[in-house]
């Protein structure tokens, strides 16, 4: 399947990536090549095959619903590009 520039812009928006108009053409070409590689799978009839989501055939392990982690808010928040009074700062969302 070939991808055009407008489709690249659409998926870039979904992925929250900025792709400039100049880049979009090249990106579309590269991704079209990758999709051609991927599309080799389409030649195989898998209608009777069950999907394998995960290599391990096990059920998800559960644990008791108890607090085991320490509160490390300050240490973790020190890593933020901008924070204040225990809050993460981002550009204004609501005027």
């Amino acid at each position, binding site marked *: 399947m070939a*991808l055009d520039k407008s489709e690249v812009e659409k998926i870039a928006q979904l992925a*929250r*990536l900025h792709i400039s108009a100049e880049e979009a053409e090249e990106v579309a070409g590269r991704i079209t090549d990758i999709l051609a590689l991927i599309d080799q799978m389409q030649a195989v009839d*898998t209608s009777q095959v069950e999907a394998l989501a995960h290599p391990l055939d096990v059920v998800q392990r559960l644990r008791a619903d108890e607090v085991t982690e320490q509160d490390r808010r300050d240490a973790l928040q020190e890593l933020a590009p901008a924070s204040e009074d225990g809050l993460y700062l981002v550009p204004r969302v609501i005027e």
Partner: protein
Amino acid sequence: MIEQTAAELSAALSRGEVSSVELTQAYLDRIGKYNEALNAFITVCEESALAQARQADDRRARGDASPLLGVPLAHKDIFCTEGVLTTCGSKILNNFISPYDATVVERFNGSGAVMLGKTNMDEFAMGSSNETSFFGPVRNPWDRERVPGGSSGGSAAAVAADLCAMATGTDTGGSIRQPAAFCGITGFKPSYGRVSRWGMIAFASSLDQAGPLCKSAEDAALMSNVMAGLDPKDSTSIDLPVPDYTASLGDSLEGLKIGLPRQHFAEGLSAGVEQGIRDALAEFEKLGATIKEIDLPNNHLSVSAYYVVAPAEASANLSRFDGVRYGYRCEDPVDLEDMYKRTRSEGFGEEVKRRILVGTYALSAGYYDAYYRKAQKIRRLIKQDFVEAFSEVDVVIGPTSPHTAFTLGAKSDPVTMYLEDIYTIAVNLAGLPGISIPAGLVGGLPIGMHIVGSDFAEAKVLNVAHQFQQQTDWHRRKPALNGEEA
């Protein structure tokens, strides 16, 4: 003595022939001498390494005989290390000082191994040549014009050039085994679930697995003894007993059944590598093993399926990098949307963005069944191929890579680069253990032999590799580093 294996260094430490401080200093000196040329390390932790070495010497003086106590190692920069820069080879994390240790790091710290630093890698482990790193490509110690392989290229180059005794890596589609092959060292990917992924920055969560890059199968066993085991912090780590992997290294290979996949000895394999692997196989026959051809009929679909599953999982995993809580943030965002988009576009490199886009596309409305579901069905077929193979043979052996290390810049087209992993990717899709060990030299460059076992047959894979290394000395061959001093 820095060229010795971890097992040999361990013995020398226990006999008191050398101290961990002396050994650590020797590696630090060598890193100082060669790292500029090889670019294997992103971060070198001189002070903390020497402090850990002093502690290790103290522990030994008090009678502690832990095998890796005082042995210097390097961690791939994908593992979180508390208080130490952890970049994952990316600009988006180039200011990230991790607030915690990965379980793998914690376990090695507990074992008394000394961390020399963090090794270079393809950005977010997406690459087969180490050329996608934000910190520049790693050079292959055997020939600086060639790549070391990827994505654990820094770890592989560091081990090959004796900048460390051993190193950790991660393998999502071949990222431990292929660089091990290109650099002439031993690289082992355990079964999926064997080693905790906690604190290992996620690329594709159903495929990623950590493992050792080192100088012998015996060292891989020693490192696996430290790394393997249940971790409550990783819900996909498996609750199975962990054997002592060194205990069965000496087992005889008399009667071992080896399968050679026809599909791994077909078109695309270079003549030199094929001859090297066939010569190596003769060693196994001398040891009493029998060899038969087998089929992995769906192997040719593995790269296609992988380039749906891995990018799809990556696109979800990498959504966390948004410039809010840690890492890079773009300058002067006009609004939140602008901040997300520019942070990610400026912070991620080309290959990472390409894979996020492919993954987003494969998961987007209307394409899920055609791509993601289809790839999961192909994954089942690939797994079944191995299940059938292992009903006939004990291990599957072939080349790790179709050729020796290629030159920098030689594979600029993504699809050509993706096909590099044609022999290794199926093993990740099936979740199996696989090792690459040195099996010869072609044109002065190492070739790797790939040994794959059934689910959780780590001990068997290591045993087979170790027995080969008892008969051969390919794993002892070293690159000449003359004229590369910084």
